[in-house]
């Protein structure tokens, strides 16, 4: 058997020589993910050149991260739904409905209806909890109809798409619910809703430690059984590249400073005399981005290290085999929808917090962005294929296209045309590459 000396694992892996591909394989990095990072780099550099250096600024990249977070969070849940051969068209409407409900909880129900008053320390927690539980329940309800009722998910969630939006219009009567609780509003990001420089560096350091821990931990596990492991240089490459990316991102976020007016206000409030160039307060990582990273990590663990995730992939690969293998297929499918529903609630919180209120067209067309992000990220409608990091990158690609075109003053219909063409091209390319790879 091949469980011989593990150090030179690259040689054991296969007959292929030291081609670039086999090098990548020994690092054990998904080549598709690398391809996406490459595509993203091309998009960023392209926009930067076309906009005369406006794209690759700390300010624009920081904004990009905040704008991507809400779609990225939902896209991670959409991956598991699509992987198990379903679709959820209702996320945009559900987001509106949940955002609206959470706004009602903090702006009307807690303060007025229950008479507890505004800005209680617990308000944001209660609102978020209500949203997440309701999201899981409504998503799970749609999933129940799909899994146990046997109605195709396309139909069920098309129904949900209409119903949730209709309910908002019925109850909101066109009203905007505002303002949001002051703590809750931090979830939307902005200079105040961010970590600042020290906090960002701490998070960055923790992330680097996490990378080292998980890379070495998985190597230990394999070594314990005498399996081949990747070579040490590959291990070091992964750790260095990962840490560099993390710290670079923190550095960029810390190089975006509070807007002058806000900084002046802050200086006045805290009795600081402003230096000549104005007070430079680093913004750091925004809370919604932090939330997105946390969700992506948890969802990656669920998808790759938990039974539930494995079942979703097995079902997508062959539903009948999954059932015969003893998996509870129906429950698993229902839970993928419930999980997505609770993630929709988190995104709804970010969006309402950012707007500091709930409006009736909250989340309109989000389902398209979310599905596109998942699909650009390599999730396949034929089932069983898709990754969480891919979906997050897909959301960033989508948002980069949109915000880059805004910088270039491309009008909104043209933006839609470009995004549509990119979506089809990306999936077409992906399918082509996949087909060649399996041949």
């Amino acid at each position: 058997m091949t469980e011989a000396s593990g150090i030179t694992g690259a040689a054991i892996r296969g007959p292929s020589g030291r081609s670039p591909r086999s090098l990548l394989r020994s690092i054990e990095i998904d080549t598709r993910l690398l391809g996406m990072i490459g595509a993203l780099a091309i998009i960023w550099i392209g926009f930067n050149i076309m906009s005369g250096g406006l794209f690759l600024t700390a300010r624009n990249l920081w904004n990009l991260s905040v704008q991507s977070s809400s779609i990225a969070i939902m896209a991670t849940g959409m991956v598991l739904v699509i992987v198990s051969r379903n679709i959820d068209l209702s996320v945009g409407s559900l987001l509106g409905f949940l955002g609206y409900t959470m706004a009602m909880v903090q702006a009307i129900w807690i303060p007025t209806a229950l008479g507890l008053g505004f800005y209680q320390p617990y308000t944001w927690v209660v609102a978020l909890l209500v949203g997440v539980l309701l999201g899981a329940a409504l998503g799970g309800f749609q999933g129940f109809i799909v899994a146990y009722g046997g109605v195709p998910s396309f139909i069920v969630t098309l129904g949900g798409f209409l119903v949730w939006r209709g309910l908002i219009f019925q109850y909101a009567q066109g009203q905007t619910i505002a303002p949001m609780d002051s703590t809750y509003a931090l979830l939307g990001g902005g200079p105040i809703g961010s970590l600042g420089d020290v906090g960002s560096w701490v998070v960055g350091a923790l992330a680097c430690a996490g990378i080292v821990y998980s890379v070495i931990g998985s190597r230990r596990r394999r070594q314990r059984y005498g399996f081949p492991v990747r070579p040490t240089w590959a291990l070091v490459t992964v750790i260095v590249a990962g840490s560099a990316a993390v710290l670079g991102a923190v550095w960029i976020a810390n190089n975006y400073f509070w807007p002058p007016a806000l900084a002046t206000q802050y200086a006045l409030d805290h009795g600081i005399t402003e230096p000549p160039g104005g007070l430079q307060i680093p913004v750091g990582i925004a809370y919604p981005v932090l939330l997105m990273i946390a969700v992506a990590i948890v969802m990656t663990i669920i998808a790759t290290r938990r039974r539930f995730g494995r079942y979703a992939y097995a079902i997508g690969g062959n539903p009948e085999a999954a059932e015969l293998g003893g998996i509870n297929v129906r429950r698993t499918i229902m839970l993928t929808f419930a999980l997505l529903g609770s993630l929709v609630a988190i995104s709804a919180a970010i969006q309402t917090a950012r707007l500091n209120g709930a409006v009736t067209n909250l989340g309109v067309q989000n389902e398209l962005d979310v599905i596109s992000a998942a699909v650009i990220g390599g999730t396949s409608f034929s089932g069983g294929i898709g990754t969480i990091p891919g979906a997050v990158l897909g959301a960033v690609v989508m948002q980069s296209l949109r915000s880059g075109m805004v910088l270039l003053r491309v009008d909104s219909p043209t933006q839609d045309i470009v995004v549509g063409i990119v979506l089809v091209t990306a999936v077409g390319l992906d399918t082509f590459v996949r087909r060649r790879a399996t041949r």
Partner: protein
Amino acid sequence: MSSGEANMTTTELVPLVEMRDIRVAFGGVHAVDGCTVDLYRGEVVGLVGGNGAGKSTLMRALSGAHPPDSGEIRIDGQPVSITNPRDAKTLAIETIYQTLALADNVDAPSNVFLGREVTTRLGSLDDSAMESATRTVMGRLNPNFTAFKTQVKSLSGGQRQAVAIARAVYFNAKILIMDEPTAALGPAETAQVRALIRQLKSEGIGIFLVSHDIHDVFDLADRISVMYHGQIVGTVNKDEVTIDQVLGMIILGKRPEEVTQKELAKLHG
């Protein structure tokens, strides 16, 4: 009527499995039309019959893949209700399906442990432990198998079959259903599976072996149940019949003593 005379060779009184008057229909097609079979501990019962005779359907009724419309199943004399594959596995019934029923897009260890994953204390999947165990079982079945990290979709037919067999034998089955287990295997691997069947039998496991290879069946089975158009023609002791007699039962759908000289001549002509 099926197994009265055959029982004399087995000393045990209560069969491990009894399937009585099982019926399964697909629309108007009576795929299994009142079948009764039984199986004792440490026994191999060969189930033979032409294509579409209903062998797989009868076995799928026992494995929970397609519960019967009517009939009774007893395990160790106790009536049981098997409504899905999980019920069957709880009763220690393991199955190698004719279609293999593998999850194509995950690797061999994930398939072997599908639905029964090994987890760490925190509930995370312990892939290394599963791979290690899979390497051990595979070492018995097919020592040349090394593709433990490949999606089973890209394995060869025989390798896939080995994965399906590994999955069925790993979990201490009491009852094993093997539907064409060697159909895709090469000669060496087939010999290995035969040895495995003998060993499992000696460990007291009861095995239903569905096969078109009549020599295989004669080699391994203690008793042979013959199906024809959804019904059991008869169950015979391997030692009391010839291969030709069993072939006659498969093709003509009649017990040896009912076959006329003319039919026999036609069979050989």
